[in-house]
């Protein structure tokens, strides 16, 4: 019996992931989400709805939030991809990450990477958003644990902190990425 076998064809692509150049052979049908998770071991982007509704798989491609579950890896060729693993810099958390921790905007954590990257895209366009602006921008990113209030608080607060001088996009956060405290 003839079966639709996975095609053996390989495409070569080059892209930048979290600031590092990556060259890879991919299948034409390979999704960006599978490429990141399975090939690069970057499991921060999560698979949930598969239909570009929930936002759990959101990564930034050339600074634009995209659903990695509905984007071909091929479409990311020649582009810059940022995943949650690439957000902290020089051992310091990004202010958004700090704010999510402090405001208890994290519960099960499954939506958190996509939520933070979606918020990052907003802060790059609107440096100090109001809660109304946060809601309008982030209403397509789902969280099933929180009531969203703490997430809105965190994004507004991160915007304020970044405006107040904590360097945007470079780990200006208060916390170290290293494990919590030392005894």
């Amino acid at each position: 019996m003839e079966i639709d076998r996975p095609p053996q064809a390989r495409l070569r692509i080059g892209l930048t992931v979290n600031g590092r150049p990556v060259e890879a052979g991919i299948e034409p049908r390979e999704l960006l989400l599978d490429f990141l998770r399975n090939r690069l071991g970057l499991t921060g982007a999560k698979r949930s709805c598969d239909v570009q509704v929930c936002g759990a798989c959101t990564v930034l491609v050339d600074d634009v939030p995209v659903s990695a579950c509905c984007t071909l890896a091929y479409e990311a060729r020649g582009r810059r991809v940022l995943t949650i693993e690439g957000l902290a810099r020089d051992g310091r958390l990004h202010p958004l990450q700090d704010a999510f921790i402090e405001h208890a905007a994290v519960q099960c954590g499954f939506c958190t990477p996509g939520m933070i990257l979606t918020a990052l895209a907003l802060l790059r366009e609107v440096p100090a958003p109001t809660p109304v602006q946060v809601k309008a921008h982030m209403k397509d990113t789902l969280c099933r644990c929180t009531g969203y209030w703490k997430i809105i608080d965190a994004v507004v607060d991160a915007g304020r902190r970044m405006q107040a001088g904590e360097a945007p996009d470079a780990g200006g956060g208060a916390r170290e990425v290293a494990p919590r405290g030392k005894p």
Partner: protein
Amino acid sequence: MTAGRRDSGEGKGGAAAPVDVVGTPVSRVDALDKVTGAAKYTGDLIVPGMLYGKVLRSPFPHARIICVDASAAERIPGVRAVLTGRDLADLDPYYGHAVRDRPVVAIDRVRFAGEPVAAVAADDEHTAHAALAAIQVEYQELPAVTDLTMALNDGAPRVHEEALRPGFLHSGEFRREEGNICYHYRIARGDAARAMAAADVVVEGDYTFPAVYQYAMEPHTVVAQWSADGLTVWACCQHPYLVRAELAGIFRLPQSAVRVIVPYVGGGFGSKSYTRMEPLTAALARKAGRPIRIANRVDEAMLTTRRHNMRCWLRTGVARDGRVVARECRIWLDTGAYADNGPRVALAAGDAAPGPYRWQAVAVDAWAVYTHMPPAGSYRAFGATHLQWIGESQIDVLAHRLGIDPVECRRRNLLRPGEEVRPGRKPLEADLAADVSKVAAAVGWGTPKPPLVGRGVSIGVMGAGANPASTAAVRMQADGTLVLLASTTEIGQGARTVLAQIAAQELALPLERIRVAGADTHVTPYDRSTGASRSTTVAGLAVQRAAADVREQLLDIASRVWGLPRVALRLHEGAVWHETESRSYADLIATHFGIAGGELIGRGEVAPGRGDGQAAGPVFWEISCGGAEVELDPSTGRIRVRRLASVADVGKAINPQLVEVQDEGACLQGLGNAFFEEMLFDGGQLINGSLLEYRVPTMADLPDEFHSILVGNGVGPGPYGAMGVGEGALAAVPGAIVNALLDLGLQMRDLPLTPERVWRRLREVE
């Protein structure tokens, strides 16, 4: 900040002394891993040699399987094994914690559209998926009962014709009921018919509640691996020890040969209660002789378990002065093709029917009914969410008729602390009248209302805590740091953080010196389950006792070292002190062992057998209390929530921030259940099996204002007087909304309150 205001009966904490960590909103211990993407969930794990599994599901709600031919699929390169019902011959293939009615994979017959018929293991997911199409299944379609009415008809086809065995967690003896009745729960107190006849005003009605999808963002995911030692399963399950017991039963293994490990869990809300995809994954791994991962997609998760759709008839009688007299209720819950948690849901629904009032007589019948529908089980605040809005709406109808303010009517009838809630069960802890007054005030009760604005409140109590059986261990390491072992799973509720806070408090240890292990049945000690809002109250108590055990050991050692009585010693900042002299825990451990090593192990247990809680339960009564102010757009039927309030009556908030966020999340799910969440079926087929068509609340659905009111009277049975929260608000919100519409003259008897349904009801009323 947000439009909402948060009140707190506890005080918000602030910079508390490091030793007083209980009651402080410390940051979550798992937050750093979760904001950096480092947190690993089951689907992030790769076991060497792992294959990928896909499941072939029945297209028919009821059919006989004539033949499954997997030979073509097995010949596909990359396919390693295909599992069918024929592979279960040497197993005990039926499982179910309530009723052992569910095969690991269909045997001879399918009972719902979506039931697993076969599973493929392949080198990658694409190959496994492609191979499903190569499996030839011949079915003989049979008549199906795809709703409650069909299932309850005389002469209806029986979903289960054979004798069924009870599961190990069935409450009471299992008796096979007539026809398609899976379980029947009854409350009969006083002579309800007579009391009702004597009531001055009576209201009755028929109501419906839809099937609802929990939507844990992480769909069910399992990795199973066999070795000479037995079976290891990594799963996003809520109750690892119950899963272990069921796997041991199915595969005829001693419990010690089954190991269940729970990584971080991407939400549960009941959907990961009990056993889900674990038996199928383990059976496929056994056949393939390789580790397997099966990850459900959303549509498959919806077919795995869901909230029961329900039909209900309710009648309430009151006296002219507003005193409640009698309530009668009949409840039919569609539990689908397999009992799943249906019996407990029926029990909880029956218990929720009377509400927290002082009746002369009550008669409740609740039936879980088998149908040829996907199985229904737990979803946050089950039973209570089904019933509370109905009972509470009749209270308001009657209050309006008698010209009594609905809040005042409740004050006259609500049970008081110490009163009996249900015969033979634990008396009430909380002050319900105070709670309802708080939410009423928060939504502007008694203040002038603009046109088309209505207000409502709703209150109930839920038996919570499940069984009070938990154990925990803490291991103080040679350097004075602590490893905390508990099997309550971290599903987002903050269990690891709260348990760490409790241990920190008991041992006067800075929080940074504590690490909490994930649940692993080979490592972390027994816990019954993670659900029923029990982690803080029950597992927390076990941890408190385990930490106290180590504290006693430290005091003993210090007492010997100094030759002083223990009363002369105190614990502070990781050391034992006598006046101004101190010895660190590390010093004491080194002295005790005589080497630079060793550890102190503390053990804690909570068990009904040792007097923790009553056998009849519950561990505590969780309060479900909410208020809403809504604005109706009569031209579209759309409802805007202007204000929403909930009381989280926690006894003692060990971490107020975590309590708030749990309460907020429950409220938002309550809005989803009230306004739009509904699984739609046509002839047993799920027709909105995707988030494109199944809508959950987004930021755009937030109320204009939200108040989460923490109440802490220190009256709970948990550590420091804590009692659980996290579910109640979900049950409270639909009732508050329905009553706010009633305030506008609109009586709703079916959920969800979609604009179309509200609009049509408006036309009827006019």
